[in-house]
């Protein structure tokens, strides 16, 4: 097999991105490539899973394994892949609609599990692919195609949710500061546990409010703040909720703690994909022996409630 030197160029996908010129997602793509190069990971050991949206087209533009799944389902598909082969570097990517709207439940629960997953959300505060409706992070008052009188719903706070729910690496990036973003992505991939990077990734076509200029005027880096302590949950929470004249970017929080995979005994035997299939005769006989005479006649059916049965 021809070995190729690992460079950002070598990670180009088979086709060029078809995002609008200037789309924030270009910066995110570049940062992911740079982080892979920086960490020296072989591209075939990377699996990038996305949902549906402009941002979710990303796996097609990078030389790595990819699944371009359903709208909102990047995280569960990535979860399954990570549990099936924990030797892979599994990265879920997508948009704010994908992750914080239709996929919200998966987002929350994946963080509770502290799976060893990296999740990068290209947050443009809008539904880009469907041409500009309000998204879960659209700011209040923003007039979009679906909110002509201005958005009245409060935007979700993904970083605060992440902190409250158990993510162990919580960061915010800005694709307008791509070098800084690369560091965050590299840190997230290297981190053992669930890492979330919410990236301000402007949609130049459908979001005329949250532009590059908008963010440039507001963002500041946490690492420039003297004494900022990324191990303090409450300190991080304060920063997670700061969204106004000033908006922090950088690593808000990180915590070392066993991952879900670490606590799953079957995975201690190695990646599931490499484990033997089926049952040997002895185990099979043992299991069958359990069923002899074992006549629990009334199955513990229970369902939602069963007043007639206590053994639910």
């Amino acid at each position, binding site marked *: *097999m*021809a070995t*190729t030197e690992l460079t950002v160029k070598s990670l180009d*996908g*088979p*086709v060029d991105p078809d995002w609008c010129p200037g789309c924030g997602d270009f910066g995110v793509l570049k940062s992911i490539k740079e982080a892979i190069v920086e960490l020296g990971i072989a*591209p*075939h050991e990377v*699996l990038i899973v996305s949902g*549906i949206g402009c941002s979710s087209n990303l*796996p*097609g533009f990078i*030389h*790595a*394994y*990819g*699944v*371009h*799944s*359903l709208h909102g*389902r990047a995280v*569960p*598909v990535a*979860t*399954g*892949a990570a*549990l*099936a*082969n924990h*030797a*892979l570097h599994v990265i879920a990517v997508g948009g704010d609609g994908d992750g914080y709207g239709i996929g919200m*439940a*998966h987002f929350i629960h994946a963080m509770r599990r502290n799976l060893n997953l990296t999740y990068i959300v290209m947050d443009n505060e809008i539904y880009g692919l469907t041409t500009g409706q309000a998204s879960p992070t659209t700011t209040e008052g923003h007039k979009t195609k679906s909110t002509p009188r201005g958005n009245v719903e409060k935007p979700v706070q993904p970083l605060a949710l992440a902190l409250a729910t158990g993510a162990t690496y919580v960061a915010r990036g800005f694709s307008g500061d791509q070098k800084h973003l690369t560091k965050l992505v590299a840190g997230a991939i290297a981190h053992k546990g669930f890492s979330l990077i919410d990236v301000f990734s402007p949609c130049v076509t459908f979001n005329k409010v949250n532009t590059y200029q908008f963010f440039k005027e507001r963002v500041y880096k946490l690492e420039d703040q003297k004494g900022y302590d990324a191990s303090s949950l409450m300190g991080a929470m304060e920063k997670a909720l700061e969204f106004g004249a000033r908006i922090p970017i950088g690593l808000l929080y990180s915590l070392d703690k066993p991952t879900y995979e670490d606590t*799953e005994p*079957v995975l201690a*035997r190695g990646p*599931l*994909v490499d484990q033997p*299939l*089926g*049952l*040997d*005769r002895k*185990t*099979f006989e043992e*299991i*069958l022996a359990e*069923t*002899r005479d*074992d*006549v*629990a*006649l*009334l*199955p513990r*059916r*229970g*369902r939602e409630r069963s007043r*007639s*049965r206590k053994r639910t």
Partner: protein
Amino acid sequence: MATEITVGIAGAAGDGLDRTGDTLARTAARLGLHVYTYNSYQSLIRGGHTWLRLRLSEDKIDNHGDHLTVLVALNQDGIERHAREVEAGGAIIFNGARLQCDPVLVPKGVTLVPLPVPDLTAKLGKLLPVMQNTAALGALLHLAGFDLEATAEILLETFKKKGQEIIDQNVGVLRAGYEHAARTVPALGHPWKFSRKRRPVVTGNHMMALGAVAGGCKFYSAYPMSPASFILHWLAAHSEKVGVVVKQCEDELAVVNVAIGAGHAGVRSMCATSGGGFALMSEAIGMAGMLETPVVVVNVQRGGPSTGLPTKSEQGDLNQVFGASQGDYPRVIIAPRDAIDCFHSTVEALNLAESFQLPVTLLSDLLLGEHRSTIDPEDISSEVPIERGEWVTAPSPDEAANGGYKRYALTPSGISPRARPGRAGCIHVSGTDDHDEHGILISDEHTNPAIRRKMHEKRMRKVEGVRARLQPPVLEGPAQADVTLVGWGSTWSVIHEAAEQLTRGGVATNQLHFKYLYPFHDREARAILQGCRRTVVAENNFTGQSARHLRAESGFTVDHVLVRYDGEPFEPAWIAQRVRDFLEGRPVDLQVAEHEAREMAYHYIRIHMHDRARPGRLQPITESAYGEPLWIVELLSRADGRPEGMLVIGRETGSDYGWHPGVPSLLGEAATAAFATSLGGSSLADRAADDTARAPHDRAH
């Protein structure tokens, strides 16, 4: 014919009925008999009425049959609801010190066995009330001709931890019941030949879980939902032993997507749910078709629509499973016919999913999934084929160019060799947008009709490959028959017995049963059915979903459809009777039957009378002021048995027209009719409105 007996145990939850049933089933299983258990329970009275039937036979059985040989009644309702069902030559056992059995309830030829429990057990010290069950069990052993010692041994094992005193007490009560019955009534005279072969007692859910691990499933995800949850419980409990990762997820959307993610990464994966959860899974099942990712999805059906009847069985999801997800995609739908078939079908599903890289749905139901039966252990084994399908073997020449490997190569079979993520040289993206051979999208501004056509044809070609591998349906029973019964899935055994009954009764009947719903053997089915004289589909849903499926797939319309949708499973005689009705031109009768009127009365009493009464006698009235025939149900006080009044139920609509307290009792047809008329009823205008509201019960198919 094989000797068999059916025992029904009726009581309230808390009466210790399950333990008694357990002990009886274990006794029978130790004697080498086959066991099938069915528990239908309704919460009609406080504490919940529980009705457990055990069919015990020398032969393998997979349904609860038509008979009731012995009733063990643990409370008064048990006697009143089920005494009439006991057949001649049978017996009713109850605690004579607590319960009465009105002779009008007892069919001719049925022996009453009231046990004087306090007298029998006086010597054994102070007993718990549930010990009456053990005395009843002892009496049953005598009547059934079973071995007292086998049961005593089981009690010993059961109470081992509780100490010798408890064991002695239980065995003592058992023996007292046995001896009392032996002194007072003859045994029923079953000529048993006990093989004493020890057999596993399993459910379909159980067999699916075991089939999955034997068949190489390594990953299982689920969200709790009856009646599929047992698979989750079993696999979670055995996860480490069998090396399967089991993940409970936040919802069924996650469940199926996680399973597909695992399947994509290269492990055999499966998930299970019931109809509601399956509905949430639809979109992702189509994704598996598009990504060409193997996954097995189990749907253990329960009564629908919506939340429906969570603890009752139905075959109502065929339309849903067939119609799942948008667009056309290759998939397989398999409906196993019994517990053993659940084992083998699950292995087969995993093999088909990987061999053809597509989603496979196993369509089971509550009846199959939860009801217990004995199987012969030699019918299942760890030695099952594991076919993993086509994988890339040769290293791809040029990794960097990403050009060597075509994940979606257009092949004659439609199967493109897979490469597992992590393998060097085969980098690709699998997408749910349509794509070219490399996986590169051909959607939106890149849409390419030519590639789309060829890619779509490639995917759908796999259906033909699957079809060629599946065993076509075969006609079972006499080659020349008056009637052919057609069914699918879990009803094989009950239809089989119905066909045998009909044949014995002079109507030669055979059976065509479908296990593979998709791909469907349309040509084979048509050829067989065109050669049949009369064809009748029997299934557990309202609209005859499989009859429609058969028509859509093969162009064949059956002559008649028998449907049952009250939540209760078929019984052989139920089917046989309706087949005879059809043959003899009797229309389908949808009037409220007597036992149904009684069930409705129990419901009324629970809702409106705080369970203070119970139904007594019932009388049908043909003419009434309500514009429909009625059931007049006498309600008796639970406290002293005195009549409390009458409940009026429409025989056609099933509407409860009201409660008339103080009306003394049923007075014979004429007087009761006069009473019905005296109720005033509805005006003519109301009646006309009633008539239009009542849809004609014409269910010709």
